């Protein structure tokens, strides 16, 4: 789900080379009817450059212009494709369906418009539909075998489908095709991380940043890997850089809060979580929303536990298991909280569930709990 500016520029060039040339005569003919107005292909070229460079605040104007072009020529595959890309760049969930629709219409009008398939695959990954992303990418690869961007995104798709081995192989194929592809390298790092080859993944992420892939997602991945490796100073520095690039995403802020907590900077951890709460809605509907809320409450519970605010910790951790009844760590930390509150029977229930879900209490806490439960039983029942 990373979208590098370089990728977008290449894509823009592809859109123009594959699409506009083919329709130039028709567009030129239309232009003759409206003297003084730039030809549609010129307008599309300008909009493509704009949209693929991130819009820079002109997305609404670009979308309006694309609609005007489509009013003149409803069968312009390029305009439909660019409109889909522009909608996605807006970032509004309300427009995701429309973005997919425009890209699909573009492909229907011009099946050779490979960039539209690439972007549609990105969109399917946004929507959590990796299987459909795979279908689009495989269809595109039949027309453009060994194309590095397609291979790279297919690598990421396979990783999201739980096949990190395949993902790593595809990322390496993409790099063979284009050794300078930061996108492929980033996906290689993600595959390595999923394969539990964390230190190699860290090296790859660092290379991506050095190669110019300074995207929030890369900072997030590297920061999280540092956190996992216990390299807290580097984690905080890297996650902070990522958050500065995009303050609207809750996941890296939660990771940053965790790093602060583990380093003992509880006030900063609190502030980070307070910011996350402004980003997360009250209602979690999608699975991605639920995961974010679960992680937020877990981190909040662990912070309160660290602050010895046990009632608040229990409240947050109960929300964790409420949101995701199959998430073992929620029960495990709730059990720990109850132990510290002296609520041993409740702690015992939670510990049992945690163990069933593969997240048992550490041995010392288990022993403490057993001792307390034994002591609380009436004599003769031991």
């Amino acid at each position: 789900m990373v979208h590098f500016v370089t990728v977008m520029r290449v894509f823009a060039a592809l859109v123009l080379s594959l699409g506009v040339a083919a329709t130039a005569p028709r567009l030129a003919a239309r232009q003759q009817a409206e003297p003084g107005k730039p030809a549609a292909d010129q307008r599309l070229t300008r909009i493509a450059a704009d949209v693929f460079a991130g819009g820079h605040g002109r997305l609404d104007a670009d979308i309006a212009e694309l609609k005007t072009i489509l009013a003149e020529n409803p069968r312009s595959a390029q305009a439909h494709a660019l409109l889909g890309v522009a909608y996605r760049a807006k970032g509004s969930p309300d427009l995701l369906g429309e973005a997919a629709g425009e890209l699909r219409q573009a492909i229907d009008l011009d099946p050779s418009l490979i960039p539209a398939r690439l972007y549609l695959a990105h969109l399917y990954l946004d929507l959590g539909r990796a299987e459909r992303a795979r279908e689009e990418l495989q269809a595109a690869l039949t027309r453009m075998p060994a194309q590095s961007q397609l291979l790279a995104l297919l690598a990421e798709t396979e990783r999201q489908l739980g096949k990190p081995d395949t993902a790593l192989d595809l990322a390496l194929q993409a790099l063979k095709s284009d050794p300078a592809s930061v996108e492929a390298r980033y996906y290689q790092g993600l595959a390595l991380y999923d394969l539990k080859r964390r230190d190699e993944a860290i090296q790859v992420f660092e290379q991506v940043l050095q190669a110019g892939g300074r995207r929030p997602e890369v900072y997030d991945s590297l920061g999280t890997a540092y956190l996992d490796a216990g390299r807290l100073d580097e984690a905080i520095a890297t996650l902070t850089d990522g958050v500065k690039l995009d303050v609207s995403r809750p996941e890296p802020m939660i990771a940053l809060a965790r790093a602060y907590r583990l380093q003992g900077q509880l006030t900063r951890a609190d502030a980070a979580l307070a910011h996350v709460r402004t980003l997360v809605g009250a209602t979690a509907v999608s699975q991605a929303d639920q995961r974010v809320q679960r992680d937020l409450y877990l981190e909040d519970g662990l912070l309160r536990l660290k602050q010895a605010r046990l009632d608040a910790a229990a409240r947050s951790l109960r929300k964790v298991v409420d949101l995701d009844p199959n998430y073992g760590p929620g029960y495990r930390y709730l059990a720990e909280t109850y132990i510290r509150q002296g609520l041993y029977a409740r702690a015992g229930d939670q510990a049992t569930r945690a163990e069933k879900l593969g997240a048992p209490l550490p041995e010392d806490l288990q022993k403490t709990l057993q001792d307390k439960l034994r002591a609380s039983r009436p004599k003769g029942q031991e």
Partner: protein
Amino acid sequence: MIAAGRLAPICLAALTLAVDQRATATAPASARFADVTAAAGIHFVQRSGASPDKRMVETFGSGVAWIDYDNDGFPDLYFVNGAPGSSNALYHNNRDGTFTDVTAKAGVAAAAGGDRTFKTGAAVGDYDNDGYLDLFLTALGPSVLYRNNHDGTFTDVTEKAGVAGAAARWSTSAGFFDYDRDGRLDLFVASYVDYRFDSNPYCGLKKDGYRMYCDPKIFDGTADRLYHNDGGGTFTDVSQRAGIANPAGKGLGVTFCDVDRDGWTDIYVANDTVRNFLYRNKHDGTFEDVTYAAGVGFDSNGKPRAGMGVDCADLDGNGLPDLFVTNFSEELNALFMNRGDGTFDDKASMPGLRSAYPALGFGTKLFDADNDGDLDIYVTNGHVIDNVALYQPNLSYAQKDLLYENTGAGVFRDVTAQSGPALQALRVGRGLAVADFDNDGKLDVVITSVDRPAVLLRNQGGAGNNWLAIQAKGRRSNAFGLGARVTVETSEGSQVREINNVASYLSANDVRLHLGLGRAAAAKRIEIVWPGGARQVLDNVKANQMLVIEEEVR
């Protein structure tokens, strides 16, 4: 409403607001509906097949159709059921306000189809021009075409006709119309999302009772279909060639009208969460998607809405058809007023229509509920998420219908509260269809509701106003004159209408054209332009009669 209506367009903007506010505050509604379902002997209960798996199709309900299958002049009723194996129902109109279930005799239960066929909608038209109305049924699964045998029975001719569609296709609203003016009715079938039972995602919170039906955004759209009637009882799928096979579509509603008054019928499709489609007929068997040019795809902020039901008719008396689309809760229903230059104005935020904001609209019809000479708006509502209150306590699954009275020149006020107890009931409204079932000169409404009894609402209002009903009999044109344009001039002004039974959601309305004439005792002039292009004029026609107009062939 006639008193305030028909006002000349002087200072219209100021006048519009004044009329609307005054009307809302004081004027009584003149349409009034009574629930006569039980008295009419109708016992149909829709079965959705609801399951803990929250299969999306369960919540979209099924439709209803008025079809005078025995040509006795009294519209009969056909209900589509939902769940696999459930029976549809045909009720014969006994001409005395009651109905008799004749499903078994007629052979239209459509209960077969396997455990994965969910029936959805119905369309009515005389595809073989034998003077008897036939029936087309849509489904998540193969569609069915029943040919009318003229003896109260029907024969399944789907295979011969070639209109079943793909086995896993989710077809929704459909309708017959003659897009190429060859005198034979063609068939348009709207298609919703690419939904597969074996990959039914979990949506909503992972807590007991919180699973919800999924957002259509996560599914791909599917292309609508257009079948050309080749004659001889067969059709050819011309969707691609005709230019209406946009794979982005998530069609739920469809209607037909001649939006540019060029004599050729155009198509408007209401899509869910993606832009609506307006297809302009290019007179050569193809259509052009003019949605962007016309400005009828999005809301005023450029966002697609959740289009459900749809209708097309002249609401402001300028002689041009306007477009109305029902939408999701916390969206406004769309009202696109035709400017006459190929573009439309969205008047969704008109004060009198804002009460629809919390409602989730499905079936709808623009008709003259009080016979005052202008078209009113009826909408049936019901949320798609049965447990929506768990997520948004301000919303409910079952909802009230809405009736908007046209106070003149396309300005509306909500008269639901004044229109009788039947409109205060809560339902999970889906299909809706309109006909004057008892031929008393007032249009009545039938509504289907998810997992609830259907309701027949008899119109008891409009006292003192006059009316005309027209049954067209085509000879060169299709047998019921679908697509004909009718202009009626009275002492109170003129009305331009089209004979069109395709509107609402999953449903079919009466094929007869009904016009309210207000206080006018007669129509000074009636002009009918047949789909084939021939014009016919009748002078000085008395009000309050059912007029049969046969196409003259010179």
